[in-house]
């Protein structure tokens, strides 16, 4: 991997000269032998940058680090490769910045504050790993196939993949044992006779999607443990979702919840232009939290990419690509990967800022005209695929969107909607009432609901689809009932409609709300369906009573309803508690029905009120 740079330094060194500095954008001349999008070292400080535009001998470079003190005339050196990330074991459990530098080892080197001009590989080249070969001498292998497995964490077995474009016969493979990251794992003899070494790590240009064999239909859900998502607006493994919301509506908490509880094998979390403390929170919290599926610390499946809001803006633009490339790397090993990008708006704004400095003609609200293209390219890197190693794997992408002023018609939200299939709209009024997750049941949608229905029917509950439809219908009807209530009060409504409002309020407090700081933080889909069914059973039975003329006030006074409001506090595995409450609800309603009939008969016998 260092060959190209080596050649340059010995032979004709590629050195340009700075001609202008304007914040993170630097102009240089003498770049005729450089490549478009080539990675460069800028100035005596060797700041990392990337060539964005070329015209004759001149070019424009975006610099990923602070350019203070840089002078005209300082050198620009080409590195002979585009912006790439070093992929290998040692990424999981660690935190890297937007251009792939390890923040933990940077801290050891520079202290608490980030310095400039330091380059470090994201993975530790001297770390020793336990390697088990999975092929033997004489095997014919091709790009993307695994030749050995490395125990990266208790949860993740890293698979050493043959680089793309290499095909041939295994001539040498290491015996089982411990090896350093930088060591050769195998040698492959190509048809033309050339022998090529395969290392434990390799570089991949972040802006180029990694190939796969075949794209598959995303028909399995990504279980998130969040009732409103799993039950009403599910996302598939390999699906793409957006969470838009103004500030304070809970985008980050929702993203954290998904990172914690979704049943992906590997989680890539990108803090793109967001708060430093949010990354710290994940770093402090995840090692002590247990993955509900494997019972191992969550950190053993998590990779963090941090480019916080005060870190250089150009690296913010790169962080999204670094993240998705790492996600693809683990996908290629055959894992289901979930990637959270918080927030894609900051990435779009980084594009806007750089575009402005380049003097490009802006389209809407100052955003560059290629905003939609970039969003599409990014979201299309998600999906469920068959890998070259013949494994089924997926990348699900969940992007937070931070619309300015909470206005969903702004360009980033609007364009994002075109390329995603699952929309979890956060509602400020729900957030103000501290109804969390503040996912609006009216404005959100999921196009995956039909695709994952079969899976739910097979694995969770055969009535899942029907219950979901019924719940949504009640909530939708409640929406219009609430409008009437706001205008005229509840008293004017017939009991049928007031029952809708009552059931909807039960759904809102017992089903839709979920406290992420209690035991309810993770809700298995089975428990969610149980709650849903209990409320709907109540609704159906009450509806019959109301239709028979039973006043709603009698039903409303049932003391079991208070318990029903708190049903989410029940332990997920306490089936008996659910059954008991369900039974008591049913019996109470029956009693109310009987008593009312008895009362009615009593009233009717003494006086015939009507004339």
């Amino acid at each position, binding site marked *: 991997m260092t060959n190209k740079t080596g050649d340059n330094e010995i032979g004709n060194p590629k050195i340009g000269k700075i001609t202008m500095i304007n914040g993170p954008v630097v102009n240089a001349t003498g770049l005729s032998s450089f490549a478009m999008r080539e990675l460069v070292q800028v100035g005596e400080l060797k700041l990392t940058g990337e060539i964005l535009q070329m015209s004759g001998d001149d070019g424009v470079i975006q610099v990923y680090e602070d350019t203070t003190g840089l002078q005209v005339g300082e050198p620009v050196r080409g590195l002979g490769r585009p912006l790439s990330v070093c992929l290998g074991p040692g990424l999981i459990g660690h935190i890297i910045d937007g251009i792939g530098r390890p*923040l933990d080892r940077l801290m050891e080197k520079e202290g608490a504050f980030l310095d400039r001009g330091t380059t470090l590989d994201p993975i530790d080249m001297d770390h020793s790993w336990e390697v088990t070969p999975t092929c033997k001498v004489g095997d014919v292998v091709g790009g993307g196939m695994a030749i050995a497995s490395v125990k990266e964490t208790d949860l993740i077995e890293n698979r050493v993949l043959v680089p793309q474009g290499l095909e041939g016969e295994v001539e040498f493979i290491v015996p089982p044992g411990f090896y350093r990251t930088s060591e050769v794992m195998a040698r492959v003899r190509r048809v033309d006779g050339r022998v090529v070494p395969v290392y434990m790590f390799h570089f991949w240009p972040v802006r180029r999607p990694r190939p796969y064999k075949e794209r598959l239909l995303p028909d399995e859900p990504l279980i998130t443990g969040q009732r409103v998502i799993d039950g009403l607006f599910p996302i598939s493994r390999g699906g793409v979702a957006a969470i838009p919301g103004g500030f304070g509506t809970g985008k980050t908490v929702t993203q954290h919840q998904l990172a914690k509880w979704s049943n992906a094998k590997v989680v890539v979390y990108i803090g793109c232009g967001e708060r430093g403390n949010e990354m710290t929170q994940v770093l402090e919290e995840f090692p002590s939290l247990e993955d509900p599926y494997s019972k191992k610390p969550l950190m053993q499946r998590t990779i963090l990419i941090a480019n916080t809001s005060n870190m250089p803006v150009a690296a913010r633009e790169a962080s999204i690509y670094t993240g998705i490339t790492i996600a693809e790397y683990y996908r290629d090993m055959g894992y289901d990967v979930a990637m959270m990008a918080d927030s894609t708006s900051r990435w779009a704004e980084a594009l806007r800022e750089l575009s402005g400095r380049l003097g490009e003609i802006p389209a809407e609200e100052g955003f560059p005209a290629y905003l939609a293209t970039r969003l599409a390219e990014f979201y299309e890197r998600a999906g469920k695929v068959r890998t070259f190693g013949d494994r089924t794997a997926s990348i699900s992408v969940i992007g937070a969107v931070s619309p300015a002023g909470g*206005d969903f018609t702004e360009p980033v939200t609007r364009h994002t909607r075109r390329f995603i299939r699952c929309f979890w709209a956060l509602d400020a009024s729900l957030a103000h009432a501290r109804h969390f997750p503040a996912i609006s049941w009216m404005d959100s949608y999921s196009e995956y609901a039909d695709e994952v229905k079969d899976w739910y029917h097979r694995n969770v509950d055969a009535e899942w689809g029907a219950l979901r439809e019924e719940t949504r219908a009640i909530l939708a009807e409640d929406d219009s009932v609430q409008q009437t209530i706001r205008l005229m009060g509840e008293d004017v409504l017939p009991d049928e409609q007031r029952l809708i409002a009552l059931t909807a309020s039960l759904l809102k407090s017992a089903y839709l709300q979920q406290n992420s700081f209690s035991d309810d933080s993770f809700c298995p889909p089975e428990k969610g369906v149980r709650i849903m069914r209990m409320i709907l059973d109540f609704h159906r039975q009450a509806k019959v009573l109301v239709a028979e003329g039973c006043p709603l006030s009698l039903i409303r006074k049932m003391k079991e309803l208070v318990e029903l409001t708190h049903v989410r506090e029940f332990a997920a595995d306490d089936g008996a508690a659910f059954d008991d409450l369900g039974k008591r609800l049913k019996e109470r309603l029956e009693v109310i029905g009987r008593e009312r009939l008895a009362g009615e008969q009593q009233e009717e016998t003494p006086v015939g009120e009507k004339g």
Partner: protein
Amino acid sequence: MALTEYTGIEKINGPIVILRGIEGVGYDEVVELLMDDGDVRLGRAVMVGRDAVMVQVFAGTEGLVPATSRVRFTGRPLEIALSPSILGRTFDGLGRPLDGSGPIYGNTRRNVNGAPINPMARVYPRDFINTGFSTIDVLMTLIRGQKLPIFSGNGLPHNRLAIQIASQARLLRAENFAVVFAGVGIKHDDAAAFVSSLSRRGSNLVLFLNLADDPVIERIATPRYALTAAEYLAFDLGMHVLVIITDITSYCEALRELSVSRGEIPSRKGYPSYLYSDLASLYERAGVISGKEGSITFLPILTMPNDDITNPVPDQTGFITEGQIVLSRELDARGVYPPIDPLPSLSRLMKDGIGKGYTREDHPSVSSQLFASYSRVQEIKALAEVVGADELDDDDKAFLAFGEAFEKTFVGQAKDEDRDIGQSLDMSWRLLAMLPTSALTRISLEDMEKYIKPNQQPRPGGEPSTNAAAPAASPALSGENSAALK
């Protein structure tokens, strides 16, 4: 050290000066403009080209004579000299002493732009600060190391609130506590009020003042001086620092003015597209760092133009800070002090700094219930305006009474009242007891038994679910009566 002096001002446009034919200038370095009368103005190289340098002049360009003014390049970024003796001192918006006590001598000089804190080095803030305001302590708890802005409007008592927070914060009792205050484009009177009320607390105060009639472009530097001083006090000297900066809106306007004179493409409301990144470079300097004793808690104050929370300044701020305290003109008009509107206000860090082991175990559910109930009050109020309060049912009336009491006694407090968190929480339970139990969906059944005592005052629309003996007896009684009547 003698620095080369140049002439060659080619163009002046607002606060921007273009110099030609000068080499060896570093991006972002400090430029000194020497005037004929011996006056020295500071500037910053904001764009450096092969044959031209663009300089932003902090004090403005009025009176600059292109032919005779000379220019000196210092080769250094904007810096501040630091030593423990900055405590008790007053500086202008560019860090020059204003109090006549002479310059600061110290061997520590720091770039005022600072460097980003490695997220790896941060410690997640969890220490509760008791501000003495029930609304803040219970509903939007301030945590040591947090950045929590006050969103206000012109004429609202944000300054008084900030001063009271600074003086009542229990942290103050600690020896190693300091307040760094930066006035950005504030009125003389406001500055005087801040200085007099804060300086009563002794010498642990550092002031940076750029007043309303001081040069506008200087405002871009003032918060950075204040934060660099705060970082020194917190992370070098181990003090717990509270930084108050007012008014962030003036800062953003200065940024916009500069951006426009540079001919940059504007984004929303004319603000530059880098407004978010720029504000983040200030706000993100708050925090706690592992292995260092001190902390920076940051209370920026901003006035929302036309009280509009979607204006880019509050909007972008809210996306970076860890919550916001929003003041309400309506509450202020009704004489409620502090006029904090709980619903749009928020503290993102409170969830990890309250509850068992931090404040009190009932705190999380109480605050969630108060939010839910008070938000219900708003809906009922809106309904009452349409149908008339008399038409409401008993439950709704109970909510209105709760809302009234909540605003008057919980949000509102006397101007020197300093409440303990225990006091505030007890008061919350008394308020919640005014509501029907069926409405308390955020309180666990267990807590309800524990805190809402049966012997509390009877409520309108009492619920049959209350396990108290008396209300349960009444339906039975009426049953008997009706039986007796038959």
